[in-house]
């Protein structure tokens, strides 16, 4: 199982790598990459002009080699806020759980902005610092400016555990839901650069250890409802007084849990005119197993045109809630084949990626898990049924050793298939005293290239962005520099985040922007099919993904060598469609809904 991780590099790869390193060292910082960005302030969304064309994708490299190139430019870009994470020893699980991150466009200037929740610093049983959450505004030169104070979104001292960006009130401006250990925050975007926390008024504070959340239209009434996962019952006192008491492999005492701690129930809130009503029981979301919920993702997993919901639980069976219509859901995870692994065991699930991996038109599921267990790829075999194909696709062996969190499927080289990125990092710093057992606490991210449905670990040959060890947690993907490829934003505990810029030569790409109401953000639940030659690609817009994170809502397609998409078909959340034909590649293609 472990052999695939010890992949050797061939000479050609080393030469390519050396050239890339030299180019990076000699080249300008990210600021000089400006010019690809759109003009701001028009309120018109993404740019219409294509940036400089990159070289066409090259043929697939040999095993172990890689055409990918990524570099962390967070510091140059100005993303310098450190994520506070309890104590150095991570004495309580809250210290090590971290948070998600979000790419969003809060000011509708066509450039992605960044939101980073934050935790606390704890010392000697006291909270010595409540970390300031941060909103960074994206600037035309690819850098970011901290606008937290003026926007009024500093987190109010809450320990932020996740973030979802969506226009929940349908006014055309992206709002922020920040899940917390404590009371959740709902920052309503006032449209003038300022936000207002309306969580109490809206009824979504739900105090507890909340984790991931997702906005989706559960009852097909045209507005966004909200699901919030919860982890365990824990008080501030429990956190402050925690000491490492769990025996780890007989060599260390580490943070206790989640076994031995009581799971906390998830919540479902139905949107009733901007106010949310707890409809957990009524809608069929009662969390009877009190699963340790860590990640949430809505999507039409059974292909019947309405959104279902997948919840990844740590050490418990995952939930798949099938939409039965009329705002009612039924939990069908076990017999649908995505609650357990191939051996019938519950795994310690942390994050979720979805995408049409096999070109079937259906949404497959990938779930990240604990170390010394594989992360699981569930192939959607139709009608909402799944099978575990982790072993056959190479995903299992490649993910066995790492402890994995945020994740995403994306076509990072625009060659027409979905690759897979995984953010890694262990939860026990104490393991560094025994590196021979499961490796280090700080871990590099993993990049798995899709080669005809088989995934190959190309992490070590994908540039410095995949070489930096850290305690990675939430991950969001998005094209922050508007150059047509997908970059990564990754939270790191006790460190600034990583902004991993994609410098990979791209095939023909197309970014589809289904425009929301009044020029607002793409509505969650929108599905886009792009047809190019004999291939059809599908993506969906979602609010809440990965590990407690929000991706860029614009939909990125890799078309390989096709310079034109024959058809772009947008299916809006209400089932109506908009069709465009002969769409040239290498552009941000805005699709407005018919009046």
């Amino acid at each position, binding site marked *: 199982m472990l052999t695939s991780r010890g992949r050797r590099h061939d000479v050609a790869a080393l030469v390519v790598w050396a050239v890339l390193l030299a180019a990076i060292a000699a080249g300008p910082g990210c600021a000089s990459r400006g010019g690809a960005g759109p003009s701001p302030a028009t309120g018109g969304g993404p740019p219409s002009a294509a940036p400089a064309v990159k070289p066409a994708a090259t043929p697939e490299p040999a095993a172990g080699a890689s055409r990918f190139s990524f570099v962390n430019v967070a510091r140059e870009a100005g993303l310098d806020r450190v994520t506070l994470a309890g104590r150095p020893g991570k004495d309580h699980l809250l210290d090590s759980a971290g948070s998600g991150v979000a790419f969003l466009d809060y000011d509708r200037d066509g450039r992605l902005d960044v939101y980073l929740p934050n935790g606390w610093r704890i010392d000697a049983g006291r909270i010595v610092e409540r970390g300031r959450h941060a909103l960074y505004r994206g600037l035309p030169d690819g850098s970011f400016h901290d606008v937290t104070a003026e926007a009024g979104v500093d987190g109010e001292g809450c320990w932020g555990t996740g973030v979802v960006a969506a226009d929940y009130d349908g006014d055309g401006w992206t709002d922020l839901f920040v899940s917390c250990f404590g009371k959740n925050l709902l920052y309503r975007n006032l449209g003038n650069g300022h936000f207002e926390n309306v969580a109490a008024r809206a009824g979504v504070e739900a105090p507890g250890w909340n984790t991931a959340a997702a906005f989706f239209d559960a009852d097909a009434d045209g507005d966004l409802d909200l699901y919030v996962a919860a982890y365990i019952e824990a008080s501030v006192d429990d956190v402050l007084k925690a000491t490492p008491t769990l025996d780890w492999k007989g060599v260390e005492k580490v943070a206790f849990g989640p076994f031995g701690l009581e799971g906390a129930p998830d919540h479902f809130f139905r949107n009733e005119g901007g106010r949310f009503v707890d409809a957990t029981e009524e809608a069929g979301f009662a969390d009877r197993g*009190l699963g340790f919920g860590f990640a949430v993702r809505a999507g039409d997993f059974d292909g019947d045109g309405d959104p279902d919901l997948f919840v990844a639980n740590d050490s418990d069976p995952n939930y798949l809630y099938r939409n039965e219509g009329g705002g009612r859901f039924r939990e069908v995870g076990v017999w649908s084949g995505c609650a357990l692994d191939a051996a*019938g065991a519950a795994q310690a699930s942390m994050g979720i990626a979805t995408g049409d991996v096999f070109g079937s038109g259906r949404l497959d599921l990938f779930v990240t898990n604990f170390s010394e267990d594989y992360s699981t790829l569930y192939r959607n075999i139709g009608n909402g049924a799944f099978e575990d194909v982790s072993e056959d696709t190479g995903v299992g062996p490649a993910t066995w050793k790492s402890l994995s969190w945020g994740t995403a499927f994306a076509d990072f080289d625009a060659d027409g298939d979905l690759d897979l990125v995984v953010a890694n990092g262990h939860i026990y710093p104490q393991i560094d005293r025994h590196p021979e057992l499961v490796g280090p606490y700080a871990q590099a991210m993993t990049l798995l290239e899709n080669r005809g449905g088989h995934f190959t670990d190309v992490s070590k040959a994908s540039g410095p962005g995949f070489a930096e060890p850290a305690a990675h947690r939430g991950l969001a993907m998005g094209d922050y520099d508007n150059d047509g490829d997908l970059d990564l934003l990754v939270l790191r505990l006790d460190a600034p985040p990583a902004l991993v810029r994609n410098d990979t030569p791209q095939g023909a790409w197309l970014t589809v922007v289904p425009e929301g109401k009044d020029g607002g953000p793409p509505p969650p639940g929108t599905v886009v099919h792009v047809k190019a030659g004999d291939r059809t690609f599908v993506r969906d817009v979602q609010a809440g993904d990965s590990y407690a994170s929000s991706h860029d809502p614009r939909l990125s397609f890799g078309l390989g060598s096709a310079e034109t998409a024959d058809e772009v078909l947008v299916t809006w959340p209400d089932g109506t469609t908009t069709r465009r034909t002969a769409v040239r590649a290498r552009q941000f293609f805005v699709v407005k809904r018919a009046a």
Partner: protein
Amino acid sequence: MNSRRRWQSGITAGLGLGLVLAGTLPARAMEGAGETPSAMVASYKTLADVILGAKKTEANLVRSILTSAHDRAYEELMRARTALKGNDAKGAQAAIENMAAAVGQIGSEGDASVGAVRKRLLEGGHHHNSEGEAKGIYDEGFVIVTKAAKAQFLDAAKVLGQLAKAPKADALEAEWVKVEAAWSALMK
């Protein structure tokens, strides 16, 4: 409900008896120096009976939970048969899905609510089949359902779930035969 109440009252009565005996012990007994007072030994024996009895009770209770799921699966099979005979595709689909859920619950040794109880027991250090777990025969905390049986029931649940989308009588009967075979082997 009646059988559940019986189990609950049995456990409560046993534990209560043990606690009463323990609570009424004299501070010092009359035995010779160096010996454990016989009343304490007697109480401990009673408590041991309760503990060992509770383990048996647990096995019987889990067997009842499984039987209840099996009964539900069978009832749904009857519904599905009727629906199929009456060309009621929607009714058949619903019944077969319910069957899938019930069979899945046998494989998982109970639904999520039962899983939560099992989790609590594990958290408290209680492993009903610790030896069987060590040998790889049982999953952690499982009482009756072996790993092999679990795989059979979970596979059957998935097949039934798929079958529900396009119900066919012969395929349904064939899958039920498999479920029954696995059930008989488990309960013998």
